[in-house]
């Protein structure tokens, strides 16, 4: 008992010491002291792992985008152009008029945090690492669209990357710029001496090429597991230390624009669920956070926190209620149209995503913000499917459905229930489905919501064609091909291998939407939507526009999915300690605050 009392007393003393000391240890080694501590979270990666290395490829790695992890450039949140960038390690770049190459010029003052200069050799080595871990321009898949054919060091600060024009992509420049850069003197040993020869050989066909590709993928595993002895970064910060609750980064005095980076330290807070983020925001602890969905009362609490502000902008993604057309009655377009008229999208959005979405104006397959720029006057010709019960009834009758005692039944009189499935934990999807269920039942259509244990099970069962109706992310911009491949790609039967498009029967090769291979689009004629989508890969913006208009009309007429709401990029900031935040609708909004700091925007509040 005496020992216990001593232990308790010691613990109390320690607690009191910490409670009384109150202050914190300033470990900043950076110049320009007094810049303050910036507190944030990484919304893309919940859960800090104190034992993970400072490695951007490691899924748990303690590398934070824009802070101690640097790309060649930072992709702007453009409505339509995927090749708009802010400078990163590359200060500037030239893209060949035919998109066949990009020449990168490294920041003249760029240095690693150990004082060594950033060179073209670092960039080339990093490109090698990108080949091993998965990258758009540096893909191992033979014939992949927009893949690089050659990487050439022009001089110590210049690198030229050439596109393989056998299957070009308009996104080639983005595929090159959107890559990490790491120091060759730390990471270089991961690539074997014959790496570039092996890479060349892997581009062929046959057993040897397959073997080479496997060997390169095996290097990728070493890259993912690699633990640098110390974080060496060319970004504005370097990792000081991590514990399971927090990560601390300190200013990198060698960063090329260090004079304009204000905070001395950055603290990342750990979280494992949304409620922790809500608590941080409500307490005013975070200077910045990406979007986290929150119920209305929590959102009000967050908004009421001193200094709390919300910045909104374009988010190139929408959510759709997608149908399995292999299942009756969803094979009938009139049923899908009837449901489109019956569902009040404004009400669904208000319930499910009041801060994070705006009701879709119509189903075009394109987010409403860039839709005007892509398809112009054609947009107004699309059917907006306004909430109209009478029109819904007419469509259902056209489909042969019957109404009995106020309930809609299948043509043979058997009961019809709209069964919607969502993965557990996707609270906005489940809320939306519950609201749709209420709306449908109110109008005589039986409906139910089924939740499955998690996202891996949802995707497996969705791909296996087990669900009648599921939710599906669509309109993933800004690149035209990416937008429409969500509706007219693998989920709907089309596979695009090395630019060659084939169509698979419903239920085969991931075709769970089960739509027809050809569509007769009013005012256009017969089209093959999958082939048209594939053409978008290499099309210039002017070539893409008419194709996108045709595909938008097809999506609007055929409704493989009902576009419910278009997401909004919502960022939380706190103006109590820092100012200089991006404006509403800024093209910086999808980039982390570390990039805003690099650009010299964030300033300490005076």
């Amino acid at each position: 008992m005496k020992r216990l009392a001593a232990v308790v007393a010691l613990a109390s003393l320690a607690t009191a010491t910490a409670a009384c000391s109150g202050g914190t240890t300033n470990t900043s080694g950076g110049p320009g002291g007094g810049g303050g501590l910036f507190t944030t979270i990484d919304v893309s990666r919940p859960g800090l792992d104190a034992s993970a290395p400072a490695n951007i490829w490691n899924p748990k790695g303690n590398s934070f985008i824009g802070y101690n992890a640097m790309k060649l450039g930072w992709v702007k949140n453009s409505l339509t152009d995927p090749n708009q960038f802010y400078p990163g390690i590359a200060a500037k770049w030239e893209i060949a008029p035919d998109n066949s190459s990009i020449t990168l010029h490294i920041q003249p003052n760029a240095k690693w945090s150990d004082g060594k200069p950033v060179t073209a050799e670092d960039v080339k080595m990093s490109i090698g690492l990108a080949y091993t871990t998965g990258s758009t321009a540096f893909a191992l898949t033979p014939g992949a669209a927009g893949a690089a054919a050659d990487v050439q060091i022009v001089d110590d600060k210049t690198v030229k990357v050439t596109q393989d024009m056998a299957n070009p992509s308009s996104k080639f420049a983005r595929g090159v710029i959107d890559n990490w850069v790491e120091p060759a003197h730390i990471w270089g040993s991961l690539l074997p001496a014959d790496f570039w020869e092996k890479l060349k050989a892997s581009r062929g066909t046959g057993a040897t090429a397959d073997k080479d590709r496997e060997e390169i993928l095996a290097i990728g595993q070493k890259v993912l597991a690699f633990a640098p002895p110390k974080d060496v970064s060319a970004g504005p910060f370097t990792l000081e230390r991590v514990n399971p609750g927090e990560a601390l980064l300190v200013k990198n005095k060698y960063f090329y624009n260090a004079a304009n980076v204000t905070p001395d330290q950055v603290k990342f807070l750990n979280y494992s669920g949304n409620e922790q983020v809500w608590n941080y925001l409500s307490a005013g602890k975070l200077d910045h956070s990406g979007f986290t969905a929150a119920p209305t009362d929590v959102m009000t609490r967050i908004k009421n926190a001193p200094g709390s502000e919300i910045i909104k902008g374009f988010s190139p993604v929408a959510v759709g209620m997608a149908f399995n057309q292999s299942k009756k009655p969803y094979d009938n377009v009139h049923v899908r149209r009837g449901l489109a008229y019956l569902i009040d999208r404004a009400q669904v959005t208000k319930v499910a995503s009041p801060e994070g979405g705006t009701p879709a104006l119509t189903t075009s397959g394109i987010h409403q913000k860039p839709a005007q720029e892509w398809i112009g006057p054609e947009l107004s010709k699309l059917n907006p499917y306004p909430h109209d019960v009478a029109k819904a009834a007419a469509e259902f009758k056209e489909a042969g459905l019957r109404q009995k005692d106020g309930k809609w039944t299948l043509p043979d009189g058997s009961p019809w229930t709209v069964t919607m499935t969502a993965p557990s934990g996707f609270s906005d999807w489940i809320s939306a489905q519950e609201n749709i269920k209420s709306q449908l039942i109110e109008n005589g259509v039986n409906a139910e919501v089924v939740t499955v244990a998690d996202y891996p099970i949802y995707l497996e069962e969705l791909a296996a064609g087990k669900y009648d109706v599921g939710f599906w992310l669509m309109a993933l911009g800004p690149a035209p091909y990416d937008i429409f491949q969500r509706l007219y790609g693998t989920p709907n039967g089309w596979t695009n291998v090395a630019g060659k498009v084939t169509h698979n029967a419903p239920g085969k090769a991931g075709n769970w939407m089960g739509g027809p291979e050809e569509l007769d689009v009013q005012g256009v004629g017969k089209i093959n939507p999958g082939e048209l989508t594939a053409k978008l890969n290499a099309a210039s913006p002017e070539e893409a526009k008419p194709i996108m208009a045709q595909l938008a009309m097809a999506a609007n007429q055929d409704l493989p999915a009902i576009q419910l709401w278009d997401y909004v990029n919502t960022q939380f900031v706190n103006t109590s300690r820092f100012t200089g935040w991006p404006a509403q609708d800024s093209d910086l909004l999808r980039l982390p605050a570390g990039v805003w700091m690099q650009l010299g925007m964030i300033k300490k509040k005076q």
Partner: protein
Amino acid sequence: MGVIARRLAGHLARGIVMILVVATISFFIVRSIPGDPVAANVQKLIQQGMDPVAAEQATRVLYGFQPRGTLWHQYIDYMSGLFTFNLGQSVSHAGQPVTQVLGEAAKWTVLPVLAGTLLSFLVGIVLGVYAAIKRSGKLGDVLAISGSLLHGVPQYVLGLLLSAVFATLIPILPADGPVDILYEPGFNAGYLGSLAQHAVLPVATYALAAYGGWILAMKSSVVTVLGDDFILAAELRGMKRSIVFRYIARNAILPLFTILALSLGLLLGGAVFIERIFNYPGLGLLLLDSITMRDYALMGGAFLLITAAIIVANILADLFYSVIDPRVRGGEEVST
């Protein structure tokens, strides 16, 4: 060979067999969980802005850490690895050895749960004795009611309540992780103080949640002992109150040691809610994360660790019993 040594040998042999059986069952069960983690990872990367081709390759590299070959070959590799404490590589931690990942998480589970359990045990048994002796007085009633009330409140409600009161309404204690990052780790007052300060709320939650069970069990055990002849004899012989109290406590505590040992075995299972509320990334959260990622090696390792801890705790409880109870030590059968 003494009784204790014989018992130990028997327990160890049975324990090893049980661990191997559990390892086999968990190996096959975790691999039969439905779901397509590869597709989920591809979709996650696409939603983060990655091109589908790149997302597929990145996922292929990541899931390359998953063992290949037939299920039978994987099983043989897994079981042979067990003997060298090699539980494989974690997919979600990109190739880190599972033992290392478990070790990192275990410390953030073991420390608060152990402290909370021992604290609640000590307070619970002392007050349990008082509640039994004073069972016809107001103090006894108060103690018994407090035990019943706290025993009925779920851990997560207590955790949320303590967090709301002491971290939000009257913000005098932190609820955001195990230690403040701004303190240099090491044996210094600031760092250790921060550790202790951050541990107060989770330890208090564990302690309060378990306290009710201990006080009620101890009270019931003491009431049974109070009716025994040796207590009556001690009182009739005019022994000091403190000595009689010790007699009562020592005899009544025996069955509770078994429960304590089992509780300590279960502590490695973690407490997901408390870990989440107080941001203590321990074994509970790790297990959840591994299930979401279908990280088979990590799931299997976590299940095995929890099971092994319970088996070891059982063995220790039995041995401890042999030490503290002369009847068991002498080879007598005893019913608890």
